[in-house]
């Protein structure tokens, strides 16, 4: 089944994770005919297939609230739009604060969220225990909750975009690695891959943990790096022990139960070191187990069946880098999601496609251009770890 190699295209996207697949689908939907997506592996082999796929609108800046809510709205209708189930479960995110200052911030966030149409609220401990029947958080000082938050299946969501994009004529080449980018006179001209070259006036860097390496091939210095995050999954238990996503910034954890019954839990590495390896540690396994058993004591007898790790692509202000390079015309970037690239994928892919096709986007994202780092205009988002 030798597939035909396209020697030129209108747009070449590097990376078939949630970002690349969402951008490709949205470009095709906007009528772009000749879109090619290359991936050095298979779709979802990067961070996307390793993530917890949590989705929330509980953010602390206006832009992130807008993006989070817009993404939620897309996800709520995605099965219908793409014709494939994406495993969406909206059990809400229950945010847990252990410090007064943290709770104050969460309350401010809720006020902002409410002003933007997000129906999040502060909940009492009694309510929190109703939302999460097996929760024990006596040391917590406060909780906030938004019932539309939740999680999805990262494989199904990405494949749904991938399949719908293919049906609209997008070409996907797997096992095809980008090795260099052709730039001439300040404009991008095409990509060189392990399987041949493709000429294109527009290249999109959606290479996840490796996006800064791809940018460097075009002579662009992106201040991004990647760090390893570990995660574990248990055997399935009766659904309902943790119907919401439990999340705490100061507690440094997130815990969810997938509809199939397994508990998935993870935390951030201490000190956030740069790390491109994908190893697993005992330290994480023991630490995470302690956290789970302390929060959900009834789960002590549940077995961990698997642990793995994946990378967060981090930016200096933990906000994504989206937009066209001002140094190399035609070079677009969608990276630096700092651990939130799954939930933003549906909306960021749509906005970047709009930007490519029309030059503007329906939600303004100019501030997400990487030139903000040079100007020192970092975005202050209080709702990240």
């Amino acid at each position: 089944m030798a597939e035909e190699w396209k020697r030129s295209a209108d747009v070449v996207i590097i990376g078939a994770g949630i970002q690349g697949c969402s951008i490709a689908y949205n470009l095709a939907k906007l009528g772009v005919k000749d879109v090619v997506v290359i991936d050095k592996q298979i779709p979802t082999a990067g961070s996307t297939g390793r993530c917890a796929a949590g989705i929330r609108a509980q953010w602390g800046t206006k832009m992130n609230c807008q993006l989070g809510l817009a993404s939620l709205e897309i996800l709520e209708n995605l099965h219908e739009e793409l014709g494939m189930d994406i495993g969406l479960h909206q059990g809400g995110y229950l945010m847990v604060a252990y410090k007064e200052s943290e709770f104050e911030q969460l309350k401010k966030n809720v006020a902002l969220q409410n002003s933007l149409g997000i129906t999040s609220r502060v909940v009492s401990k009694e309510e929190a225990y109703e939302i999460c029947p097996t929760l024990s958080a006596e040391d917590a000082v406060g909780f906030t909750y938004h019932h539309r938050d939740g999680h999805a299946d990262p494989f199904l969501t990405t494949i749904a975009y991938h399949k719908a994009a293919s049906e609209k004529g997008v070409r996907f080449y797997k096992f095809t690695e980008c090795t260099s980018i052709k730039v001439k006179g300040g404009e991008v001209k095409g990509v060189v891959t392990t399987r041949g070259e493709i000429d294109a006036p527009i290249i999109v860097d959606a290479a996840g943990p490796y996006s800064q390496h791809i940018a460097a091939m075009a002579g662009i210095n992106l201040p991004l790096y990647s760090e390893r995050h570990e995660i574990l999954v248990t055997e399935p238990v009766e659904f309902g022990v943790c119907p919401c996503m439990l999340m705490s910034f100061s507690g440094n954890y997130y815990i969810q139960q997938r509809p199939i019954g397994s508990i998935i839990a993870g935390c951030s590495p201490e000190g956030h070191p740069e790390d491109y390896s994908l190893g697993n540690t005992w330290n994480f396994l023991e630490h995470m187990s302690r956290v789970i058993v302390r929060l959900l004591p009834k789960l002590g007898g549940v077995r961990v069946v698997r642990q793995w790790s994946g990378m967060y692509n981090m930016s200096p202000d933990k906000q994504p880098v989206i937009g066209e390079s001002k140094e190399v015309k035609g070079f677009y970037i969608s990276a630096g999601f700092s651990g939130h690239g799954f939930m933003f994928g549906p909306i960021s892919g749509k906005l970047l496609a709009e930007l490519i096709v029309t030059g503007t986007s329906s939600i303004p994202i100019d501030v997400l251009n990487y030139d903000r780092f040079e100007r020192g205009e970092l975005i202050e988002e209080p709702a990240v770890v």
Partner: protein
Amino acid sequence: MTEEEKERNVIVCRCEEITMGEIRDWIARGYDTFDELKHILRVGMGPCQGRGCREIILREIAKMKNVPVSQVDPGTFRPPSKPVKLELLAKKEGGE
């Protein structure tokens, strides 16, 4: 029912109840690696961890792509880890 239809109805992955027809349809759409089929259909993720279905699926991929089975990527194999209870892991030395 034709032979083809009968074959399509055969359950290939018993743990996840996936038929040959479903597998053939996804391979025909271009999802022709074991890992892609696993991500889409959960084949190989059941209690038997693919012992019951992996070989049949790899053979089907090879047949449809017209390549020898040895050229089909067997997929990431996660050795059957020994499941350990959370409370045991939580009680390890050096607790908080």
